């Protein structure tokens, strides 16, 4: 089931990148997709963590929300860079992730890193170590707004 879905994704990827639709090239595409699916099955990476198909339906909505957050904080970081006084107050802190699956925690950690102004430096269990450019960034993460959004995205499950 997961293998079939992975194969479909990979073949769609091939079609978009290739742009040439002759029988020979399509055959080569099918062959490489089959090889990739076979190898990744043997490596046992095609599971809820490696190919979380359950998250697909809410993926787009989450991405839009994340994008708006990224734009806001990128603008804040830009203002700090342009400011001649360079008003930074680097802060390191720890926050708990309330997600239940490794894929959810990885999504949370990556969302934090993608947002300019905050970087996840370490993940131990469900405790993330965060470096924030300004003190307010660390406060926001401790407030847990993003954590709740990622948990909502994760729920409904794989």
């Amino acid at each position: 089931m997961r293998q079939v879905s992975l194969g479909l994704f990979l073949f769609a990827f091939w079609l978009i990148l290739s742009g040439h639709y002759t029988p020979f090239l399509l055959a080569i595409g099918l062959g490489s997709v089959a090889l990739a699916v076979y190898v990744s099955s043997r490596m046992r990476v095609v599971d809820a963590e490696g190919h979380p198909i359950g998250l697909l339906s809410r993926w787009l909505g989450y991405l839009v929300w994340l994008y708006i957050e990224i734009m806001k904080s990128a603008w804040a970081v830009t203002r700090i860079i342009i400011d001649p006084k360079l008003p930074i107050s680097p802060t390191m802190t720890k926050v708990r992730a309330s997600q239940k699956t490794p894929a959810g925690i990885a999504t949370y950690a990556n969302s934090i890193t993608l947002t300019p102004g905050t970087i996840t430096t370490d993940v131990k269990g469900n405790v993330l170590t965060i470096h924030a450019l300004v003190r307010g960034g660390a406060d926001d993460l401790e407030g847990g707004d993003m954590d709740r959004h990622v948990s909502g995205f994760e729920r409904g499950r794989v």
Partner: protein
Amino acid sequence: MMEQIVDIASWILIVLGSFFIITGAAGMLRMPDLFTRMHAASVIETLGATLLVVGLMLQAGFTLVSAKLVFVLLLFFFIGPVAAHALAQAALHAGVEPMLDEDRRNREPPGGAEKNETDPVEPKT
């Protein structure tokens, strides 16, 4: 008329994207230590790259080229955090101490109220 509007919009997006790219690069020069520089670098990867690529997509229209530009953006989105996380972890491991105003690392982390054990989460398959 419609084409002109799209043309002007893509102009604005490309110029704005260029501005944020240069700002991010300048930030990498201005910031005082490694971790703060990483924040500046992520401005290039997110805001600058997005605006520039969306501007190029308006020029390309609804074609395979636009699809590839979407893949460029997704590439940044999935690879950027991986690289940043690996870099930050390697630097901390090697003993590069971040310049800090406030260190809350030794404090009990807040949040995630209903779940409080620090054990690694077992994968559910």
